[in-house]
């Protein structure tokens, strides 16, 4: 167990149940002691002993790791929505990340930790064992589920609903029909937040070849100004040109980049609606929920709703708390899971 910085809250029992959302961009944890924390999914190890001395830590996380990327070996372990199986550095990064999240919520070494971990559906399907290997050192009993399913469970959307989790590396679709979703009920596409970043980066490079910016800056622009449909006024951002900060109009490019993910999302949603019994498709149409960081794109829910409404009344909503939706759902699963199930999965 990683060393604990502090123990803000202690569980009344000797067991702590946690829900963890291991995302490509952000990882979040919700614990049974009421604590909730999140961190950007970056792990950085100082490149050498000088870096370690300067940074004062053996490992850095989140924004701190990103800000010191020149001094650390920076790993984004779920970059493409999966842990790259067999590559120990990525598994190690996930291990560190989980240890860090448990520290943040004040898990004690003496406590038994029962964890439900939500991962991108792609990751779940591809390498469950890699995830287990990466996480099990920090927990006593572990279950892994897909992020969109965890988000659906947390909201009680267990029947006749579609959850679309738009993350950084992947957009995950999960249909809920009153049973445990199978692989057939879940889909993953890679047109997600990172894809928008790449599109926007290239569009801005074309428009402003002399301007000096990188993909991280573009990601920040997106997080501050993303939209689909129409937007009032101009979107202007500060970018240096030959050392001088200049205002750049990125309104049109922002819209085009964000809209580039829409065809795939619309098409997959329509196909998934068609998978339901025809009698229930009308209900499903009014039960489409967006989760993940991408759900925060302004106008996205309305835009998808308008397009799908051409075929019938449709309601697309956004989860209330996209940062913690999957972690809260995973915690709900952890708390609802019968004790005997946890015991069967205890480490030997």
């Amino acid at each position, binding site marked *: 167990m990683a060393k604990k910085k502090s123990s803000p809250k202690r569980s009344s029992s000797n067991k702590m149940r946690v829900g963890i959302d291991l995302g490509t961009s952000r990882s979040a944890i919700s614990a049974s002691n009421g604590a909730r924390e999140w961190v950007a999914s970056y792990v950085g190890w100082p490149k050498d002993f000088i870096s370690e001395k300067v940074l004062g830590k053996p490992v850095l996380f989140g924004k701190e790791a990103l800000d010191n990327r020149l001094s650390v070996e920076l790993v984004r372990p779920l970059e493409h929505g999966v842990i790259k199986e067999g590559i120990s550095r990525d598994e190690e990064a996930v291990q560190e990340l989980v240890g860090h999240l448990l520290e943040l919520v004040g898990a004690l070494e003496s406590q038994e930790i029962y964890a439900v971990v939500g991962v991108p559906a792609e990751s779940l399907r591809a390498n469950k064992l890699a995830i287990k290997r990466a996480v099990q050192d920090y927990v006593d009993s572990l279950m892994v589920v897909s992020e969109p399913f965890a988000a659906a469970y947390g909201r009680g959307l267990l029947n006749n609903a579609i959850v679309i989790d738009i993350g950084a590396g992947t957009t995950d679709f999960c249909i809920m029909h009153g049973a445990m979703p199978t692989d057939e009920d879940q889909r993953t596409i890679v047109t997600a937040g990172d894809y928008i970043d790449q599109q926007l980066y290239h569009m801005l490079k074309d428009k402003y070849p002399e301007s000096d910016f990188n993909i991280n800056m573009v990601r920040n622009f997106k997080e501050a100004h993303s939209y689909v449909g129409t937007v009032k006024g101009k979107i202007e951002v500060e970018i240096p040109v030959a050392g001088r900060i200049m205002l750049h109009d990125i309104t049109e490019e922002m819209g085009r980049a964000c809209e580039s993910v829409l065809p795939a999302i619309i098409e997959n949603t329509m196909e998934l609606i068609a998978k*339901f019994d025809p009698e229930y498709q009308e209900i499903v149409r009014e039960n489409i929920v967006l989760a993940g960081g991408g759900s925060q794109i302004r106008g996205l829910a309305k835009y998808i709703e308008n397009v799908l409404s051409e075929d019938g009344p449709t309601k697309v909503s956004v989860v209330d708390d996209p940062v913690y939706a999957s972690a809260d759902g995973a915690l709900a699963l952890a708390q609802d899971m019968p004790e005997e199930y946890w015991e069967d999965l205890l480490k030997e």
Partner: protein
Amino acid sequence: MFKQSDKREILKGIYEENLWVAGKGEARKVDKPSARSLEKRKLHPLSLISAASVVLLGGIFMYWLGSFNKAPGGVTSGVAPSQISGGAPLTGTAQVSTGKVPGLAPLDSQKSVVSETDPKSFPKTLQKKLPDVDNLEDLAIPGLDDIDVDPGNYEALAESGMPIAELFGLGVNTIVIDPGHGGKDPGAVGNLGVFEKDVALEIAKRLRSRLRKHEHFEVLMTREGDDTISLNDRVEYANANQADLFISIHVNYFPSEHSFIETYYFGPTDDTTVASLAKLENADSHYEYGEFKDIIQKIGDTLKFQESRQLAHSVQSNLYGRMKKINKQARDHGIKSAPFVVLLGLDAPSILSEVSCFCNPAEEQRLKTAEYRENIAAFLEKGIVSYLNKNTSVGGKRNGEKEELAKAQQQQ
């Protein structure tokens, strides 16, 4: 209202799934296409191409290995595309249980019978309507001597821009065309009632007829009719027939005044794989046997990645470049890499082309016509042929057949 008993069933399902992963229980009896495709790859770790690479690379490696010295800290592994996992495809063959959309009548154009073997059965006027296909460039394929590659320096190799297939003269004998969806799975359905599965099938048949004219390769299709075929079966069919290229044909859906054209190829979302490979191979290292096998596997995957990207680029540029001449509303959405199941499980370079889009009634109306479908098939053919001429050898040979192929194309 959701029943508590159903909730218990869900919790039990999660428990059983995790029990199985932990090696303590049996797998749930559900279809797991992704898992199966990965397993298949595990059983056949060296793909056809990788195997060819082993043979061809073996001698070179024996020479190169002598120049490797192990770097401190050992080898930093790259990310092989095959490890990026298999997800469901963008427009994959989900098993749709609902069947056809109520109220949609079959379209006359969908009943049209297309000759599978004789291109002359196409109305001659259609042939005349085709845009001029440019004369094929007979680009000389530079030999190994034409690039300055230091033996043992894979970084130079990766940065040379030379496809690995070109270096080792890997040929194309079999092309598998995959019409997306089919049977119970209609794919996208346009507002006028056109099914993606029907458009994809007819374009695929027309493309097959066109490619067969070249007589250099066997052209196969994953489905001949309106059949429900799983992604796995498509992949297994292609692999069993030792496909050298795999072309999956789909039609997008997105309401818009524009028609979007995009092509996906197997791979991660950027070039980190190639970079990692270069880094790996450039390490001064004495490789152990296991590491050597790993390197060969990675080269096989890199080859697939490189070739798939080249193929996607050629198909997309030809498809969009020609489409915009006949359809002003066509918009280029470019090539994108994606680890689709249908691309992941394949041994061969593979692409998934969204050849058009049910975007608006005008485009859907065009897609109903045989002329438009024939044009799309012709543009796809041009893209494939251009790729073959530029990037690889045909039928196991390199220059002679390439000239014949160009000649055949000119005779059209």
